[in-house]
């Protein structure tokens, strides 16, 4: 039988929303407080949803310890306590939570093969969340 498994993880990072393609005034009017030149931070919550057949031997869609180890190494250790604007992933694009959500989706889809990636949901605050399903 096919089930969907979702796992949530937390990391903290800072960013500044600023586009080189816009004038200072346009950046200010587009991004508001998020354009503050010194940046600001969030506690991000990632929710990863995977689907697959429940293995008859283990009762699992995928091994949770393997998923946790993968996310720890490839996502949390990489983005946690970083200034996103300084990372190569965001050298060419604005580190909005939309773009961060897409990057995390790509990392999990490319690297974690035990189950099908359904979607990545990223909560920037309790009020804002973003989902990407490919």
């Amino acid at each position: 039988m096919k089930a969907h498994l979702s796992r949530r993880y937390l990391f903290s990072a800072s960013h500044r929303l600023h586009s080189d393609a816009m004038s200072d005034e346009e950046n200010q009017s587009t991004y508001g407080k998020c354009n503050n030149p010194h940046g600001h931070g969030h506690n991000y919550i990632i929710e990863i949803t995977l689907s697959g057949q429940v293995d008859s031997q283990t009762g699992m869609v995928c091994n949770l310890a393997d998923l946790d180890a993968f996310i720890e190494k490839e996502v949390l250790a990489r983005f946690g306590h970083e200034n996103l604007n300084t990372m190569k992933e965001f050298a060419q694009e604005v580190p909005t939570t939309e773009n961060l959500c897409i990057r995390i989706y790509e990392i999990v889809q490319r690297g974690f093969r035990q189950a099908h990636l359904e979607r990545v949901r990223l909560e920037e605050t309790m009020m804002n969340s973003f989902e990407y399903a490919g």
Partner: protein
Amino acid sequence: MVYLTRKAEFSASHLYHNPAFTPEENRRVFGKCNNPHGHGHNYTLEVTVKGEVDPRSGFVVDLKQLKEVMHREVLDAMDHRFLNKEVPEFLHQIPTTENIAIAIWQRLFTKLERAQLHRVRVYETPDLFVDFYGEA
């Protein structure tokens, strides 16, 4: 079509162990969850049903009936139980969150009167949950 979700909580203990595996394999695959004395969780159950709104009552489902069925079929059987030893589905099947969601779906599926079961979601912790939509 309107979707309605009802929550419930139950607390239970379990352990992950496959008798077909060696003790080493069980420990490697299941880690701490293989502790032979079991461990427990506060589970949150979310049952989502769907249906058209009845023009007379304005309801998708009689919530009282849904609540009673959830209590009778799920909570009475699983709340404050050792799932591996006291719930028939888990005498020969590992009570992972996946299998608990499937078992709850099967217990509820035939018991609902008007509304159709859409999804069973089981939270093992706030950071881990499984959705089952009745898919083969």
